[in-house]
């Protein structure tokens, strides 16, 4: 019999071994951390989705700035 570790590695095998409810609760913890760190609920555009409209206006960040800015650019 194939063990999950052989196929997907330790980390995924551990995730598979959790019960569905345990997985749900673990993901809730991740959500709490994400939101505590100021993560936005606005999803990234999904360019492969049939609903994607390249011409649709994107919402601007609440504070008027994008979350990531380049402060210094290294040369190639």
């Amino acid at each position: 019999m194939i063990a999950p570790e052989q196929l997907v590695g330790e980390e995924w095998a551990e995730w598979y071994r959790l019960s569905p409810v345990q997985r749900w609760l673990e993901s809730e913890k991740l959500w709490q951390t994400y939101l505590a760190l100021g993560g936005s609920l606005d999803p990234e555009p999904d360019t492969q989705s049939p609903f994607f409209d390249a011409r649709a206006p994107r919402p601007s960040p609440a504070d008027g700035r994008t979350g990531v800015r380049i402060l210094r650019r290294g040369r190639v």
Partner: protein
Amino acid sequence: MGGQACVFYGAAEFSRDTDLAVLADAANLARLQKALAELRADLIAVPPFELKYLKRGHALHFRCQHPAALRMRVDVMSRMRGVQSFSQLWKRRTTIALPDGTKCELLSLPDLVQSKKTQRDKDWPMIRRLVEAHYFENIEKPELPQLRFWLLELRTPQLLLEVARTHMTLARHLAPRRSLLRYASSGNLAKLEDALADEERVVRAEDKAYWQPLLRELERLRHPN
């Protein structure tokens, strides 16, 4: 029916939107409208919030303005390609109770797998994880419906080989429905891997073709003149 359902069944997705499958009838749409009003959810794209669009297979897109769900996207669908009618989905659903007593109704795993058979890259590894997780959860004492589900939906070649080797008669019986099972039955890993890739390509092309008329309709709604 989206990211959190995938988490529950064993894949892992950090999805920031909420996808809902709903019964498309007038009374239910009125209830949905009330719930969306509580979330201060605005319709953010075409099509308009009308029953006929849900019935034709479109999705309705909302963004919440309630402080507790600020800017969260909610996508609502009623009909999905290759997926059974809502009444069938409802009969087969999984219900979970959260620690605070909130009940969540999720698509059943087979229905979730069908709904993920799309043109998008990200859905295919998800299907693989979902069925793998189910396999490892049930492999000690599998029941016939589970064996059938694995033979028809597994995307992990090694596991397909294993199930076909240990349940040869069933694999042969299902081969007319999934032709790549003949490679699984004969233990041909290389051919099986190629056939899985082909299978994915075909289904993704089918999904693109399915969406063509719907996309044309969306374009007309976006740019009526």
